Every structure is written in structure tokens, then in C-alpha cells.
């Protein structure tokens, strides 16, 4: 009989079985030497039964052992096989709990990003797959400037509309204004920006051309913004805008740009 190794997992399972049998009999603890002895005995016993049964089977010119071969083998080693039946029905029966196996967690596959280019037909299949397309193709990720005339025009008009709207809102909130009672939920949205008191009529400045219109408008006047403002809004004339300028500026000079009040800065224009 060839030598059997001492510390394999099977042997440890046998040791566990022996310990379970001892516990079943009523022992609470055991010597390590005693357990080792019983394990060795058990191992030898199983091997002996197996060998004897195999010998009987081969003697009967068969390949696979049957119950009768095992029967004869059990007789040979001297076990009382008659009492096996009653032994099996003994109480309490114990069996080792099945050990939970730690299946290796499935390795996360490498993230497939690019598309799989199919192999050309002349390339054999055992070669590794072709690399992802993103590894050798460079695509710019930014969107280039739109040079379409129509889109530019649309963007410009939208920006102009937004700026005028926000400016009129700002004026409504920073100037004395009177709200027009609208519907219940929209109350306070529609306001009339009250014009300041002027001697001359409000519209006179617009009718009389002035030298100021030809020159580049000064930076810090709301005067320049009034060109953008829609006719549907009730906005006052330039005189009131001058008054607001006086209110807003710390300097009384219109022409000098003063950026103390960031709200009074002229709007920045988009692409012209």
C-alpha cells in the first residue's frame, strides 16, 4: 500500500468525522493523539475494505465491484454487518454540514468601450482581437464654431431679446414702478416703470436728432440701452435715464466710464 500523506484536506475531513463520532458517543473533548490514532485507523480501514472488495471483484472476473463484493470484504475485515441496519437508524444521527464553498467571484470583465471591428478574412481566429477603435482613432470632442449664417442670425436675435428683457426687468425693479394688476397669479410681473418728471414731453428727445447719436455712445449710460428696448414696454425717455444715471453713478460725469455699479455696465454684445 503506498504511503498516504498526512495533512491533506481529506484527512482533515476524516478527523472531523472522527470528532463527530466522539461527540455523538458523549465525549466532550479528546486528546489530539487519540484523534490522530482514530483517524489513521479509519483511513486504513476504508482502504482495506476497498482493496479487499476490489480483489474479490477481480476474482469474479468483473470490473466494477458490487454489493456482494463489498459484503465479502466487510466479512473479511471482521465487521458485524448484521447490525449495520440498526446502527444506521440510531439516534442521534450526525452528519457534517456541507462546507460552504467560496466560489471565486467572477472577475469583472474589462470595460468594452470601442466597437469590435471584425477581422478581415485572411486573419486567423486564434490571434488576439483587434484593439478598440478609440485607441488609434482620435476624434475631437469639442464642437466647432457654427459658421452657418442662419444659426448665427438666430442666436443673435435670441441674445438681443434676452438682454432687452432682462434689462427691462432690472429697470422695473430698480426704478420706482407701478404694477399693473394682471391676473391673480401674474400680479406683479407686469409693471410700468414710472417716468420721472420732466419739463418737456417725453418723446421729444427721440424726435430731435442730436450730435450724440452720431458719436459712439458713452459706456455708462442707460441711454445706449434704450436702443434695444422694445416699444411694447413702457420705458421713460432719455431724461429719466439721465436721472437714473445720476442716481446710479457716484461720478456725475456721464462720459467717463464708471464701473462701481456693475448693473450699470452696458451689455456685452454677441458676435456681430
Amino acid at each position, binding site marked *: *500500500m*503506498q504511503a*498516504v500523506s498526512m495533512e491533506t484536506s*481529506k484527512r482533515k*475531513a*476524516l478527523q472531523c*468525522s*472522527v470528532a463527530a*463520532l*466522539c461527540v*455523538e*458517543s*458523549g*465525549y*466532550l*473533548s*479528546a*486528546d489530539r*493523539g*487519540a*484523534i490522530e*490514532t*482514530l483517524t*489513521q*485507523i*479509519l*483511513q*486504513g*480501514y*476504508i*482502504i*482495506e*475494505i*476497498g*482493496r479487499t*472488495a*476490489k480483489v474479490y471483484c477481480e476474482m469474479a472476473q468483473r470490473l*466494477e*465491484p*458490487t*454489493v*456482494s463484493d*463489498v*459484503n465479502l470484504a466487510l*466479512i*473479511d*475485515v*471482521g*465487521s*458485524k*454487518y*448484521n*447490525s*449495520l*441496519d440498526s*446502527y*444506521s437508524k440510531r439516534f442521534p*444521527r450526525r*452528519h*457534517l454540514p456541507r462546507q460552504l464553498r467560496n466560489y471565486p467571484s467572477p472577475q469583472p470583465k474589462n470595460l468594452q468601450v470601442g466597437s469590435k471591428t471584425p477581422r478581415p478574412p485572411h486573419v486567423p481566429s486564434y490571434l488576439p482581437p483587434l484593439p478598440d477603435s478609440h485607441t488609434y482613432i482620435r476624434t475631437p470632442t469639442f464642437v466647432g464654431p457654427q459658421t452657418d449664417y442662419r444659426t448665427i442670425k438666430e442666436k443673435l436675435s435670441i441674445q438681443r431679446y434676452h438682454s432687452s428683457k432682462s434689462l427691462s426687468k432690472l429697470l422695473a425693479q430698480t426704478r420706482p414702478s407701478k404694477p399693473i394688476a394682471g391676473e391673480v397669479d401674474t400680479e406683479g410681473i407686469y409693471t410700468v416703470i414710472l417716468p420721472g418728471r420732466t419739463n418737456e414731453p417725453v418723446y421729444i428727445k427721440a424726435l430731435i436728432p442730436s450730435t450724440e447719436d452720431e458719436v459712439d455712445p458713452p459706456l455708462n449710460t442707460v441711454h445706449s440701452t434704450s436702443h434695444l428696448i422694445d416699444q411694447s414696454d413702457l420705458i421713460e425717455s432719455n431724461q429719466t435715464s439721465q436721472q437714473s444715471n445720476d442716481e446710479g453713478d457716484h461720478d456725475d460725469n456721464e462720459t467717463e466710464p464708471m464701473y462701481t455699479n456693475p448693473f450699470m455696465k452696458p451689455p456685452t454684445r454677441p458676435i456681430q
Partner: protein
Amino acid sequence: IIFKMAVSQELQARNKTPVEGDISKQDSGSQGETPELSLVDFCTQLDDYTPTIPDAVTLHYLQQSGFNTDDPRLVRLISLAAQKFISDIVNDSLQHCKLRGSAQNTRKGTKDKKLTLTLEDLAPALAEYGINLRKPLYFT
């Protein structure tokens, strides 16, 4: 630990069993079933019985000795027989332990609850089965 497993001594000790087996084989009509049949019946009962020794372990050791089978019932039969053998030994050593314990604790009246399987109890139990246990006195 050095021990000898004397299988031949076992055979001599249990020489009766093969004779019994032959006799009962011949009387098929007797009250007791033939042991071969009973084992066959027993095998069919083994489908739902799990012996203490796992099937894989027993199968491994059987294959190591050349016993190759696909039927799990045979494997369980053998593991059951082996397990019964060991439990008989353990029970005998338990008797020895209790005898020793009762000899010491007769004053108290209660038996020692904590029983430990020691080699001192195991040696005489194994000797009845023909296995002689010899322990070295010192460890070199």
C-alpha cells in the same frame, strides 16, 4: 505514536461471522433474511441517508486502493461500516472512561460530566480489536 494494525488478529477474533453468513445464505426461507439480501435492501435505504463521513472523502480513499464505483450507495455502505467500527471503539473507550471515573467519584455520587477521550482509555479499547498501541515515553 507507533501502532500496529493486526488485521489477522481481527480475523481470528471474529471467525464466527463468515460461518454465520454462509449458513444464513443457505436458508433463504429462514426468518432472518440472507445478509446479502439485507445488505441489498439496506443499499436502497441508503439513498436518503448521509453518513458522517462525507461521500467524497470515502470515495477518494476507495479510489486510492483501486475500488472504483459510480454507485453512491456502495460508498455510503462502506463509510457507514467504517464509521460503525470507529464508533464501536469509541464506545468501548467510553466504557473504560466511565469505569475509571466511577472508581474515583464513588464518594460524590455523580459521574464526571466532562469526559475526555484520552489515549489511556483508547489503548485497552483498541487492544480488544487487535490493534496494539505503543507510545514513546519521551519525545526526541
